[in-house]
């Protein structure tokens, strides 16, 4: 269990780094890292299938999307970047403080991590749940993918209207 707590602390630190880091590229990489650590947590919590999804889709696909957007939209000069970084540091310096505050509050509320007594067994098969009990969600996935396809077609392919 202690190992779980350590992984979770790493997860939090990864997220913190994602938010605090200076360049967007590092932020995207940090997000991927967060996802990867989350994957490990999921493996350890008896959820291998979802973990695989998380690893391939979130750590992989979404990071690729973010990194490509970052590279497509980076025409800043060196000075601007420096100025921008100073600005950011000014705004983000409170985050670690807030985090520490939240941790303290949680400790005061006696919600600190404690080792578990027992870990329940894994339940039913995932495939059964997805295909037999929740087919409606599958239809939902098809629909939202279609909507996403139209979104991508409209937003990426068509030329914007001239103003």
């Amino acid at each position, binding site marked *: 269990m202690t190992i779980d707590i350590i992984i979770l602390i790493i997860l939090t630190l990864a997220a913190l780094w994602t938010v605090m880091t200076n360049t967007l590229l590092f932020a995207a990489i940090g997000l991927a890292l967060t996802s990867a650590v989350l994957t490990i947590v999921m493996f350890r919590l008896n959820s291998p299938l979802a973990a695989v999804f998380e690893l391939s889709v979130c750590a992989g696909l979404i990071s690729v999307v973010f990194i490509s957007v970052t590279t497509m939209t980076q025409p800043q000069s060196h000075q601007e970047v420096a100025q921008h970084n100073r600005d950011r540091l000014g*705004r983000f310096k409170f985050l670690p403080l807030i*985090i520490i505050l939240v941790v303290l509050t949680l400790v005061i509320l006696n919600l600190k991590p404690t080792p578990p007594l027992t870990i329940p067994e*894994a339940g039913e098969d995932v495939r059964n749940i997805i295909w037999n009990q929740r087919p409606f969600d599958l239809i939902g996935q098809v629909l939202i993918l279609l909507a996403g396809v139209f979104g991508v077609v409209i937003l990426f392919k068509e030329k914007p209207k001239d103003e």
Partner: protein
Amino acid sequence: MNSEALQLFWSFGPFVILLSVIGIYCILVTYNLIRALIGVEILIKAVTLLIIVVGHVTGHTALAQALVITLIVIEVVVIAVAVGIVLGLHHHHDSLDIRKLRNLKG
């Protein structure tokens, strides 16, 4: 829901709260569109963790995994559409700075 499950739950709960705080803080203070999306992503990570933890402590891991898989698909689509809109805005403004967008008011 027994007290053991509850105790187990609360040993993970603080991290969910921490992740959400990080995500919300990021959305609130950033001036960059993509960073706002990254904040949203971190929030979704927090909630994914929450669902998995709940599945774990109550023994409904299969259900929780099914939910998370659907959630991930939705997340990807939302992010894809959002990124498309960010690119559109970048085309108009040549910038990702939220301060330059404020010609609409709440």
